[in-house]
């Protein structure tokens, strides 16, 4: 039997901080920045006293900021005490799962107005300590001792994918180039540079220092240069990996019947799904993310839609291979065809299935707990025609978010639509 929400849920406003590295800021400061923008985005405004619960996605403030029990602190910082506040931890899917819990709270009838947040402050630690902290999202008893890192897990999935489908590894580099193209049009992105801009800036730096100026024929040539784009975990290079980031995002959800009180242009959550899985080694497939396919099937069924009804998607491209697999797990392309679609530009803004118009995790940045919530910010902007230079035309009607924890131990999918 199709599972429907007991009552509808709408997004009536969104906000996000700039993503990047902010040594002077605590995560709560970044959330204040996101919340301030959220307040501005709600057309008719809202009284903070109307908020009945605060669901906050955060992976590891314990390790990154030496702070547990963060949700009540953040709630206090935006003046919400004594509202019920809780931190949701499901690795990189923390934000998406927080969103889902808020949707369920409203659908159940227990709450009418709920704030969803996501935040992470990662750049205070050294690169090695960040790698160690992220590794805690894997099985530390049976996966991490093997020597796996997160780039290593996804690299192993890339090896399996490229082998199984005899795929051209250049497809992965194309994903990176495309997401940097989009990120350059997003003022909140950590990397507001196209790969061609990165090349120009490296040439200028070399000239300034009186060093030999590097020669690259084109962007692909740059991406294959081991000096410019070093190997991190074979076959993944630096520009295949999302960065270490600081950032926060916020979304205001209300019950469908209240939506018009807040804004003339709410967006509605019409599909939701979530699934889990065990360690990578125990899955039947090493070249896909089974939990994503399960979560997507639930969301499509709830929405009564098929993959071809989705006008655009924000997917969890923590690594370029993850985007390729996501486009297959979500049913945009058949198994083994995602890499060809990436090569052919079908996931670009003017392609058949635009993916990661925001720049994705790759270019926008990946403050782990914020990513799943920031995806909703892009939904709001694209569906409402507010995405500026990266706005899709015609303005899309239906969008999908796909947020993965770990290597797919968690995946959560939501589908959004506009009705005006």
């Amino acid at each position, binding site marked *: 039997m199709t599972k429907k929400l007991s009552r509808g849920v709408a997004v009536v406003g969104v906000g996000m901080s700039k993503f990047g590295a902010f040594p002077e800021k605590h995560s709560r400061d970044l959330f204040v920045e996101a919340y301030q923008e959220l307040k501005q985005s709600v057309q008719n405004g809202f009284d903070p006293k109307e908020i009945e619960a605060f669901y906050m996605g955060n992976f590891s403030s314990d390790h990154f900021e030496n702070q547990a029990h963060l949700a009540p602190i953040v709630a206090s910082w935006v003046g919400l005490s004594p509202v019920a506040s809780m931190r949701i931890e499901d690795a990189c899917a923390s934000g998406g799962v927080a969103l889902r819990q808020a949707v369920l709270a409203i659908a159940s009838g227990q709450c009418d107005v709920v704030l969803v947040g996501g935040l992470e402050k990662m750049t205070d630690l050294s690169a*090695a300590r960040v790698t160690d902290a992220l590794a805690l999202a894997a099985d530390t008893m*049976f996966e991490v001792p093997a020597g796996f*890192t997160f780039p290593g897990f996804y690299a192993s999935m890339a090896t*399996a994918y490229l082998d199984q489908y005899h795929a051209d590894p250049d497809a992965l580099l194309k994903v990176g180039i495309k997401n940097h193209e989009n990120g350059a049009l997003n003022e909140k992105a950590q990397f507001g540079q196209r790969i061609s801009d990165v090349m120009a800036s490296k040439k200028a730096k070399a000239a300034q220092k009186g060093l030999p100026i590097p020669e690259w024929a084109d962007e692909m040539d740059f991406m294959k240069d081991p000096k410019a784009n070093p190997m991190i975990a074979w076959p993944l290079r630096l520009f295949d990996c999302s960065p270490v980031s600081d950032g926060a995002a916020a979304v205001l959800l209300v019950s469908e019947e209240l939506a018009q009180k807040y804004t003339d242009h709410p967006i509605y959550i019409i599909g939701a799904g979530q699934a889990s899985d065990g360690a990578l*080694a125990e899955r039947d497939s090493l070249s896909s993310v089974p939990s994503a396919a399960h979560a997507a099937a639930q969301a499509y069924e709830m929405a009564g839609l098929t993959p071809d009804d989705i006008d655009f998607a924000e997917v969890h491209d923590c690594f370029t291979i993850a985007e390729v697999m996501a486009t297959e797990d979500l049913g945009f392309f058949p198994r083994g065809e995602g890499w060809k679609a990436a090569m052919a530009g079908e996931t670009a803004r003017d392609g058949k299935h635009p993916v990661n118009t925001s720049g994705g995790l790759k270019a926008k940045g990946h403050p782990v707990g914020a990513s799943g919530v920031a995806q909703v910010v892009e939904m709001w902007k694209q569906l409402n025609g507010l995405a500026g230079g990266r706005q899709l035309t015609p303005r899309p009607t239906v969008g999908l978010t796909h947020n993965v924890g770990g290597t797919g131990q968690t995946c959560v999918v939501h589908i959004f639509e506009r009705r005006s």
Partner: protein
Amino acid sequence: MAECNLESKAFYNAIHQDVLIGSRCKDCGHVSIPQRLICRVCHSDQAEQIEFSGFGTLATFTVIYVPPTEMVEAGYNAKNPYCVGIVALEEGPRISAQIVGLDLADPGKIKIGMPVRKTVVERGPEDKRKKVLAFEPA
């Protein structure tokens, strides 16, 4: 044969004795590594401990140039990378492990499907050496 114990730490106790253990569901025959009491296929809680031959094939792999702290301490870095992969044991299930004894100069030459066999590597400081499962070309 190591003493029958389906709890997680028994796996490493067995590794310290150079034995690779797992479990088989007495009801449906599903084989797991590491061992577990409850079968993920048929949900039975009737499992027995088994010992693997230690032979298998390489299911997938990567070569890591930016290691985590534990592997940095073991001497690995961008100039001295290491291989880690997933091995499909001949009894069926797969497990993550370091793959040693390979030429890593061109990872493209490492082949999925190559036969491997169990070995053990030691890591950690002198006073806290620990044995970790690894595989090498068979």
